């Protein structure tokens, strides 16, 4: 049975992390060389952790499914990264960033972790600048900031619309420097397919070489998962095509608790769905909400005429436009948090005011800003995003408003970790989006990059030593041990089973079916009946998959369909867990909106007396219902209020 202990250090909030560092165990340099650490994932979290641990002298092995570590999904982040530098002198502070994050997450995150995140945020910016990350600057030569949803200060650092790319390249370059130095061993096009537990501790992983199809066994004293989020359970999302939840699910099968699986973020500003062959959804950065105003027609007949192609948005008079966010939330306006903006868009579209050919779109209009600041200023800020929009939609956003609609974007839920970022399995750690993280029920914009790099550069390198210091006497194990051999055999059996199905349907066609169930019943608005239906429907999808999927080719050599099938089998289980968790959580908070729990104005209604906890699911075996454990959240430094962005 899992025992949850968050291991939050003693002392006042602001001193916890310093106290921790002052009292933790360290590994001396000659012992570091004897300790092996496996890091899975080369995104911001994995790359920053691997380079830091390599520099410190540990023996690191790192794995990625892409052909190069630089291609991890983090590369696609556009808008920016938060830090409490207070360079603009607008009243920001570590406490305020902490407070905004806890509030933005609708009070479902652990105070101590979030405070530490805010505390190390400033070091991240220093580190990245030292690496040569070309952040945007002002004419005076100092760093520029912009605002993001859910904050009233300007604390977001950015590199054009390519912040994730630049931060990842910085971390990637630091990582390649360590590869060159021989402290890190790189494994590309290699997928973790299982985690090996020996005597209750994580001692290695089984991987599949995606080029040869061969399984390999790797030992380590500790295993770190930085494998990203599981948003692709919905099939269509803003995540990269290869983003997957398999590593997290394997951890769950091996005894790690899975926390808050139902907390998924729907991003309000994505390019609307265009057709049935669509493979993914494209995000338009939230930073656009700084200068773009969101609206739909005030009159239903105008919306109908637009949908029929008889009227253009530019023909709608100012007084006939409903700037619904400015109307409903005058204090934050277009900069309300993501969950609030997404639901407001859905509400207007469901009420019949949506635009686009499908009626599932709203306008994001730059007219006012272009008039105020000039076209050049707007181009300077968002040029590449406008270009991207134009290439995809074939419309010029300088002249016609953009069309946007919410889409699945990020998963706040994930592997449960304590203050050390250690899972419930000793020696198994998780960082970045893969863990259940610091974002509670809703993540604020520009905070994922911050968390990934905080975990990798400034938290894990300390906390993992606390664990490894007790492991210096453990010699390297051979991978002929029975635990490794058994794990490898289990994977081999699974692959053989998959290949033998020889059914009639492609992996993607079944994945799309899962996606529709998820979006309809576990999406932006959920209710009891729908979630129950989802559980039934997912069971049917599972059966269809295991009896009717068709994987051409063989298990040897490169086989893309087999890779996808392996991941889909896991997404199906994750989808089920999400529905189950959503059903359990009888309240609305952040990205989790249960229609039964809302205020008369349609805002999310939390049930703090019953649900101020992290739901942590423990695996009980195939086709058995998992057991839920609670980590009660204690708030000593913030007062729980209803989030109010009016």
């Amino acid at each position, binding site marked *: 049975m899992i025992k949850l202990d968050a291991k939050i250090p003693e002392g006042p909030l602001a001193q916890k992390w310093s106290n921790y560092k002052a009292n933790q165990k360290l590994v001396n340099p000659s012992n570091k060389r004897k300790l092996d650490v496996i890091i899975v994932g080369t995104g911001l979290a994995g790359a920053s952790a691997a380079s830091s641990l390599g520099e410190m002298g540990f023996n690191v092995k790192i794995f990625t499914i892409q052909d190069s570590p630089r291609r991890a999904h983090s590369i696609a982040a556009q808008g920016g990264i938060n830090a409490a530098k207070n360079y603009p002198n607008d009243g920001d502070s570590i406490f305020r960033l902490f407070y905004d994050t806890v509030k933005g997450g609708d009070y479902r995150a652990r105070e101590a972790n979030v405070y530490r995140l805010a505390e190390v945020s400033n070091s991240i910016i220093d580190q990245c600048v030292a690496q040569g990350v070309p952040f945007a600057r002002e004419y005076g030569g100092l760093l520029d900031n912009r605002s993001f949803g859910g904050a009233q200060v300007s604390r977001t650092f950015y590199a054009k619309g390519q912040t994730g790319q630049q931060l990842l390249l910085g971390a990637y370059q630091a990582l*390649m420097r360590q590869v060159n130095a021989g402290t890190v061993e790189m494994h590309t096009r290699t997928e973790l397919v299982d985690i090996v537990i020996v005597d209750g501790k994580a001692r290695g992983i089984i991987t599949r070489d995606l080029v040869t199809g061969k399984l390999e066994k790797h030992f380590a004293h500790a295993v770190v998962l930085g494998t990203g989020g599981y948003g692709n359970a919905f099939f269509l999302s803003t995540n990269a095509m290869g983003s997957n939840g398999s590593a997290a699910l394997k951890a769950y099968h091996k005894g790690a608790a899975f926390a808050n699986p139902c907390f998924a973020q729907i991003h309000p500003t994505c390019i609307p769905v265009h057709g049935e062959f669509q493979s993914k959804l494209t995000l338009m950065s939230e930073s656009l909400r700084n200068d773009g105003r969101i609206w739909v027609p005030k009159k239903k007949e105008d919306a109908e005429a637009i949908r029929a192609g008889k009227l253009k948005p530019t023909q709608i008079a100012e007084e006939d436009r409903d700037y619904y966010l400015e109307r409903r939330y005058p204090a934050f306006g277009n900069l309300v948090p993501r969950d609030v903006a997404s639901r407001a868009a859905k509400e207007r579209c469901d009420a019949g005011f949506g635009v686009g050919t499908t009626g599932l779109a709203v306008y994001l209009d730059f007219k006012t800003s272009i008039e105020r600041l000039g076209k050049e200023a707007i181009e300077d800020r968002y040029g590449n995003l406008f270009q991207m929009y134009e290439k995809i939609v074939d419309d010029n956003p300088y002249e016609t408003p953009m069309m946007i609609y919410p889409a699945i974007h990020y998963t706040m839920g994930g592997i449960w970790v304590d203050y050390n970022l250690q899972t419930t399995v000793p020696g198994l750690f998780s960082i970045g989006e893969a863990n259940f993280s610091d974002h509670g029920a809703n993540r604020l914009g520009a905070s994922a990059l911050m968390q990934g790099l905080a975990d990798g550069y400034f938290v894990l390198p300390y906390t993992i030593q606390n664990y490894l210091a007790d492991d210096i006497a453990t010699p390297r194990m051979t991978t002929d041990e029975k635990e490794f051999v058994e794990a490898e055999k289990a994977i081999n059996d699974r692959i053989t089973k998959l290949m033998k199905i020889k059914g009639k349907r492609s992996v993607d066609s079944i994945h799309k079916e899962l996606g529709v169930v998820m979006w309809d019943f576990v999406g932006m608005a959920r209710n009891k009946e729908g979630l129950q239906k989802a559980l039934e429907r997912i069971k049917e999808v599972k059966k269809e998959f295991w009896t009717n999927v068709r994987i051409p080719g063989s298990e040897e050599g490169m086989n893309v369909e087999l890779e996808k099938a392996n991941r889909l089998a896991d997404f199906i289980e994750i989808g089920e867990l999400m529905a189950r968790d959503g059903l359990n959580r009888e309240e609305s908070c952040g990205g989790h909106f249960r229609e039964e729990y809302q205020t008369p104005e349609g805002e999310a209604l939390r049930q703090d007396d019953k649900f101020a906890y992290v739901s942590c699911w423990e695996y009980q075996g195939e086709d058995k219902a998992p057991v839920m454990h609670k980590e009660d959240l204690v708030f000593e430094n913030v007062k729980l209020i209803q989030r109010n962005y009016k």
Partner: protein
Amino acid sequence: MVQQFKKKSNMENSINLTLKVWRQNGPKEKGRFETYQVSNISTDSSFLEMLDVLNEQLINEGKEPVAFDHDCREGICGMCSLYINGHPHGPDDRVTTCQLHMRNFNDGDTITIEPWRSAGFPVIKDLIVDRQAFDKIIAAGGYVSVNTGGVPDANAMPISKADADEAMDAASCIGCGACVAACKNGSAMLFVSAKVSQLALLPQGKVEAARRAKNMVSKMDELGFGNCTNTGACEVECPKGISLANIARLNREFIKAKAQD
């Protein structure tokens, strides 16, 4: 409740195409072109979505789908490649294959699809090539040598907006390798120069600039990439508009390094 997968609206156009696709089972196997027909391709879909349709069709016929690299499908990860009708990333300007849309093609067109062809990038399967050489070039010196922690405050060193912007332009290289595929010599100079330039333009990176240039260029030579003879084909095909001016800057750093030897 919202239905996610709408039927195609009638405002879109759809086209029928003939595809000539390079198929190759493994690195050492002989490759060949196969011809396929695809129909009812929405002009609003992307090139890779068109290939998804082809693959769905092949799977339904019990055949092996075409293997191609891709991930972000947003033009930023640099994973997609493809030599389309003789152009890396196809006929449209300044876009990657994943951002290429089918409205650039006409009903009845024949499209030839090949992998990057270059000594530095061996074929792994079908349209997938091995680009690990790029990582090795970066490992040879494409960084600022700082460890985690112990660095100065981010605003301790002002950097002119002009330099920061120029560094950003060079830094937007996505490491796709189109420049190499476009070059008759198979040179990786545009890729190498983009990184050398970015870091040489910033005071943090200046210290090691000459050494970096030398190490990265010699690694490039060692890995079998050709020489740069300034044909400029790379700049034309680069999806991110990386400019030849970066090669000039690299050459200056390279000469400095030689002088220091």
